[in-house]
Every structure is written in structure tokens, then in C-alpha cells.
């Protein structure tokens, strides 16, 4: 994880200013803040960073500092992405400085160990599937059924049966999968 270069830290006043700058009022500013943070987290995730949420927060901190200093930002989402890309360069440089590529690979290998809660996860998933409506359960199970070409055929059949375009089907499956994963994580956390 990269550490901030500046001593500057986000305080309540700066955060309030940032929310106002993002949305004009606190409520819409909060919504915009959440949207930008989610996008930044996705960006750092896509770029293979180990701590995407921490980097997203650091990006927002840097943006908040600029706002607190009085800098006028017209497109906050674009500005945040620009800061995020600079931060990504810092992260890559820092990574290169700190360890060789080989060590990096080894560490990655060590870092990922199959969790031993596989069985409880399966039980949770079965329970979570039961909590879905029969229609939604069929949809998600058929959508992810089969390998490669069989999977594509299944999805086409599903589109025809439900009479919906591919993107609608994709969105439905995506939402159901996210809902199921949330349910499973909560269930595993409780177990």
C-alpha cells in the first residue's frame, strides 16, 4: 500500500467542502462521492492493485485537498480518474522499488490460499438460492450453467424463453449474482 506523500489529512471541514463541490448540497454531494469512490475502487481493482479501497480513499483525499485549497474543478469524475492514474503510477513505481518482480510473484502466490470455509460457503449458497424466487433461481442457475459454447447456447435459450435482449439478461444475472454473493458473504460471516 502506498503512503501519502503529503502530511495533509482529510478533516471534517475539507470533507464538507468536497461534498458541496461535488453536488451543490450535502445529499447529492454524498451520492456523487459514493459513485466516484465506487468507480475508483473498480479502477484500482481492474488494474490489479492489492488495496483498491485504500487507493480510492487516497485519491479522494488528494482531490479534497485541492478543493480545500480553492482549486475549481469542473469535472470531478474525470479529475478523480486523472489523480487515480497518477497514484497508480506511484504504486507501480513503489512496487518496483520495493521488490523484484519475482518476489512479487512469490508473495502473490503465498497471499492467496484457498479459504477453508468452502463447505460452509456451499451451505450458505444453497440457503441463499432458496431465498430467491423460483424464477430468479432458475435464471441465475441457467445463466451460469455449462462450459464455453454450452454456456452460450444456454444463455440464448434463456433469452428466447424470457423474451428479453442479451443486455437485459446480462444485467438481471449480474444483479442476482451480486445479491447472492452478498447473501453468502453475510451468511459465512455469521457462521
Amino acid at each position, binding site marked *: 500500500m502506498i503512503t501519502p506523500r503529503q502530511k495533509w489529512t482529510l478533516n471534517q471541514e475539507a470533507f464538507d467542502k468536497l461534498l458541496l463541490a461535488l453536488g451543490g448540497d450535502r445529499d447529492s454531494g454524498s451520492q456523487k462521492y459514493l459513485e466516484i469512490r465506487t468507480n475508483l475502487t473498480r479502477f484500482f481493482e481492474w488494474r490489479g*492493485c492489492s488495496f483498491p479501497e485504500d487507493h480510492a480513499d487516497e485519491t479522494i483525499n488528494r482531490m479534497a485537498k485541492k478543493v480545500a485549497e480553492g482549486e475549481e474543478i469542473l469535472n470531478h469524475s474525470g479529475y478523480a480518474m486523472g489523480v487515480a492514474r497518477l497514484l497508480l503510477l506511484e504504486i507501480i513505481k513503489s512496487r518496483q522499488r520495493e521488490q523484484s518482480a519475482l518476489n512479487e510473484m512469490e508473495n502473490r502466490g503465498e497471499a492467496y490460499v484457498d479459504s477453508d470455509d468452502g463447505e460452509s460457503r456451499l451451505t450458505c449458497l444453497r440457503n441463499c438460492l432458496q431465498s430467491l424466487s423460483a424464477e430468479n433461481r432458475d435464471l441465475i*442457475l441457467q445463466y451460469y450453467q455449462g462450459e464455453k459454447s454450452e454456456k452460450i447456447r444456454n444463455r440464448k435459450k434463456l433469452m428466447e424463453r424470457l423474451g428479453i435482449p442479451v443486455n437485459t439478461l*446480462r444485467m438481471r444475472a449480474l444483479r442476482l449474482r451480486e445479491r447472492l454473493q452478498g447473501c453468502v*458473504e453475510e451468511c459465512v460471516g455469521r457462521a
Partner: protein
Amino acid sequence: MAIEPNNETLIARYLLGELPEEQQVEIEDRAFQDKDYLASITAVENDLIDEYVRNELSETDRRKFEDRFLASAERRKRVEFAKALTRIVPEYAFKQKTALAPPAVSWRESLEAFFRSLNPVAKFAMAAVILLVLVGGAWLVTETLRLRSQFTTLQAENQSRQNERQALEQQVELQRRRNEELAARLNEEKQQREQSDESLRQLSETRDATSPPARPVVASLTLLPGISRGAGDKPTLALTSDARLVRLQIGVEPEEQYKSFAVDLRTVAGQRIWNRENLTARNRGGARAIGLTLPATVLKPGEYELSLRGVTEGGRSEDVGFYYFNVNKK
């Protein structure tokens, strides 16, 4: 916005980190402006994760996947979820196939075809039979429900009787234990009294064997509640050199109603020198007091604190009072 298959490939290449920086930036910018495109990336991401857990990725892609996807904890959770989903999906597919196994013609269609094939008389007879079966079935259901209800009531009554019997057994057991406890205490008190009598008898014999007592061998002191440690008028027990026993009468307020009492005798320095449990308060001359007999050798000249505790019916011990007295030797 619909996503083309070649776009899916492009997104997959992006997610595996195979695209040059400019293209990566293009995809990211588009993703954060177009929610459908963002969803498409997530969908491709999910498919890639599924292919990884099913070992469908090439060795090169697998390495790239591990490098990028297993870096963050959030994505590792998604991989774990995909593993579970991959195991569950075939189970359900099998259930669905089993459920779909029956012939294509439904029972309703078969029944209709059967009725159509009958002549009018046979149709009438069949209708009569069905009516009979329905009426008989309804009667059977009603009768079964009535019997089941009776059975449930009997079960409940039986259970209630069993509970009562268990409660009675518990009461008897409790009473038996209480009796045993009382008998043990009685026995203990009897032994204590015998010991005291024996001590008195021995002392009496000693006295008789030597000379008639000019001074008492049993020193007595009455302690009343409400005397503080610092009070100047603390009672004093004068012990003569030939005193063998000390008899303390500990006054107890009438409202102190306890099953039994316990006594701790300590020196002013806090050293416990004598204790006794299972003592009872007796009415003597209109006042309640507890009698405590102890060897005179226990007491040396000095200041003493006697703490009195009451034991409730439930066996809980509570402080009743503290008594202070001095001991002098003559």
C-alpha cells in the same frame, strides 16, 4: 448499449492486462460514463472468474488472471463465491433434468383423452364412481382429522401428567435432601454439645480433685450489638489464670431472623482465631442471644472483633453485625 462479442474479448483482454495504456484508458473512461458498459465489464469479469475456477483458461491467461484478480481481498471473495456457484449449478441442473423427465403429455391431457374415448353410459358410470370416491374421500379426510385431533389432545394430557409426576418426584427428592441435611446438622450439634459437656465435666473433675474453686473456670461475657470499634466503653473479659473456658453471649436483634448464624473471631490485627457455624439464637430472659463456648487459651490479652453472619433459607450468607471487646488476664 449492446455489447458485441468482440467487445467482450476486448474487455477480457483489458481485465487480464493485455491492452496498451491508451486502450485501457479508453475502456475505463467509457465504463465510468456508460452504466451499461460498466455492467458489461462486470459480467465479463464474472465469466472470467468462472472460467478460472473451472480451469478453462489457458496457462498464460491463468497466470495473468492470478496476477491481477487474486491481488485484492474483494476479488478473492468473488473467486470463492464462483467456486461455490460452479459446484452448486450442476446439482440444480441435475434436479431440473430429473424434474423434466416425465413424458411430454401431461396428466390432464391424458385424462381428457381417456374421457373422450368413453361412450355416454360409461361416462355416466365413471362420473358416479368419481363422485363416490370424492364423497368417500372427504369423509375419510374428516374422520382422519377428527382422530388426529383426539390423538393430539390425548398426547397433550399424557405429557401434562408426565410433567406433574416429574414435578412431584423433584419435590420428594428436595424434601429428602433437606431431611438429610437437617439430620446431619442435628448430629453435629449433638456432638458439639457432648464435647462441651465433656470439657465441663473434666474441668469439674479437675476442680473437685484439687480444691474448691475460689474463682470461676468459665469466664463469661455478654456482647451487645451496636458497640463500635472506637467506643470507649467496650466490654472487657477478665480471664483468670485458671479459666479454661470462655462463654460468650452474643446479643441478636429480634428482627434478625436467619436459619442459622456463623461467627468469626479475630484479633484487632485481623488474624482469625476462632470460627463456628450452624449456631442458633435462643430467647433468654426476653432477649435473643447466641451462646458461644471456646477454650480460654485461644484468647490472649488484647482487643478482639467478633463478626456475626446470618445464613438465609437459600444458603446465602449476610453480615449481621460486629462486636468488639477487650480481654484482660489477671
